[in-house]
């Protein structure tokens, strides 16, 4: 049988490679100076979906929420081999915490329609919360398996998967439909398909800046770019009070630069005498012994 899969993807700032330039003099992060990337574990999620497609056949839809330029992760998803992409974008969604994000995503998923599997990365590297997956599953009233590092078996009604635990792993059998979150250990994502990259390299969302003329985009010209389906809050029937900042119970009270503090600090002379002093002090204070 063929599966209907929705993959949740996110464009994130590359927090693992923060350079000095990305920090403002007051110690806060200058987001605009950071390059954006495809959230790493979302690539693992996408790879799992593509593996299912290779083995059993599937229609994969990649869904993201973000600003207009988040189309970039959808273009890349098309290069990897997904069948359809949806951009959820609206100023009303801005500054959403994980609850408001899962609200919008769950409505978009309902609009997409039937599905067997929703697959996302375990966590995004900008927030590291791992909350959006489970929160979305709850809003859809479906089951979940989080921290999946291996899908062992899939049949039309059931999945068997290994999930990492704090002391090893466990094998879970569950019924479909279900939401899975995938860890970085699950697989090594494949490279882009050259053919798909050529087909979709000009794919755009109409809310992105572009130079095409409207008439051409509406025409039947076979060379016109692929149009990325783009939905705003009205398209998914979202209530404004539950979107973005309005719909976010959590608020940032304050952001601080990390201040490195130390009580007493001394330089130990790099000599026999220096080490003797150090070790004696640690002995006398019962730090070692």
């Amino acid at each position, binding site marked *: 049988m063929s599966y209907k899969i929705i993959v949740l993807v996110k464009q994130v700032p590359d927090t693992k490679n923060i350079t000095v330039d990305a920090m403002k003099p007051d110690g806060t992060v200058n987001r605009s100076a950071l390059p954006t990337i495809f959230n790493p574990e979302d690539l693992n999620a996408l790879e799992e979906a593509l593996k299912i497609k290779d083995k059993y056949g599937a229609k994969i839809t990649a869904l993201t929420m973000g600003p207009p330029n988040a189309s970039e992760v959808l273009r890349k998803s098309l290069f990897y081999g997904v069948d359809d992409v949806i951009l959820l974008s609206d100023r009303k969604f801005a500054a959403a915490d994980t609850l408001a994000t899962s609200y919008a995503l769950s409505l978009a998923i309902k609009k997409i329609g039937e599905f067997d599997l929703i697959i996302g990365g375990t966590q995004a590297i900008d927030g590291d919360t791992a909350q959006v997956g489970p929160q979305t*599953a709850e809003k859809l009233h479906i089951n979940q398996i989080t921290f999946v590092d291996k899908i062992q078996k899939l049949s039309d009604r059931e999945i068997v998967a290994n999930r990492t635990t704090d002391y090893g792993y466990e094998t879970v059998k569950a019924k479909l439909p279900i939401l899975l979150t995938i860890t970085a250990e699950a697989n090594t994502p494949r490279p882009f398909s050259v053919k798909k990259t050529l087909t979709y390299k000009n794919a755009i969302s109409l809310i992105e800046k572009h130079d095409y003329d409207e008439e051409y985009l509406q025409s039947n010209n076979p060379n016109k770019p692929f149009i990325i389906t783009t939905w705003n809050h009205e398209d998914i029937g979202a209530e404004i009070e539950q979107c973005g900042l309005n719909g976010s119970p959590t608020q940032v009270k304050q952001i601080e630069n990390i201040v490195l503090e130390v009580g007493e600090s001394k330089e130990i002379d790099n000599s026999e005498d*220096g080490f003797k002093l150090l070790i004696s002090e640690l002995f006398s204070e019962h730090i070692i012994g």
Partner: protein
Amino acid sequence: MNSNEVWTYIEIQNGKIADVSLELLGKAQDLAKKLSVKCGAILLGTNPQNHYKNIFEHGADIIYSAEHFALENYTSLPFTKVVCDIIEEYQPQIVLYGATVNGRDLAPRIASKLKVGLTADCTELQIGDYEKKKKGEVKKYENILYQIRPAFGGNIIATIVSPNHRPQMATVRPGVMKINKTDKTNSGKVVNIQANISEELILSEIIKTIQIEKSVNLNSASIIVAGGVGVGSKDNFEKLHELAKTLGGVVGASRAAVDAGYINSDHQIGQTGITVQPKLYIAVGISGQIQHIAGMSNSNRIIAINTDKDAPIFQIANYRIVGDLNKVVPQLIETFKKLKK
């Protein structure tokens, strides 16, 4: 019933209470004292009574206990249902969860169902006031939970609040809070909860559980000798193992050292890894990336050994040794052995 209590979700791992739950009980007890309310614990399982004594001794005044065959192993839906039912019935003001794999599976589902805020991986929790300006008006909130966590890959510290929603919920990683001293005389009340789990919620079955022994137990170690990429090679890491062995400690590592293949990821300390607070932390060839510091800065004493005198690690070190580890480490071993006699 609005109990207004401060609660800890008690996680059972392999029939035992997870350490992180005991760590959180201590914190919950402190927060409850500040708020002059009771400290509660939620316990789900098949033999909950086995754990009552331990939970009371770690500071709980009241245990909300639910027993049901479907709660033998953790699965998302039955646990979400029962915890939500208890929260809705007794309305605590704060609920804390360990940021374990299962805690991170459960807490967001509960937050989503109850439509309340949840802050992941807090490193500190405090009670304080909050003022919010909106449309020219200032709204004041008293005694709310400050949920403090590293953000943006560990590069900044954010204080998060959820002033308008109850309960306020947070997860905390294992090892971040300290277990309070037990009080053998403490006891309290048990509230038996009728777990209401319908058939449609039993959709997952755990068919196999595999335990993999970690090659090191960093959380319980009182002395840690940790190496960074500056150690330079797997062979050089042997010297760290020797120093750790001499001092009666264990070996830790920075993410960079793990990525370089010097040692396996069980040893990784930091934001992505394990959080430790040993009596003595010896950082060897670790430059002091914020991601690493987030996992060890609460150590009682820190010795840093580095060839670069400007390495950021020296900013948090109690003892700074500028020098080559290949000379310094063997000398430390020798000095220790001499003075020990």
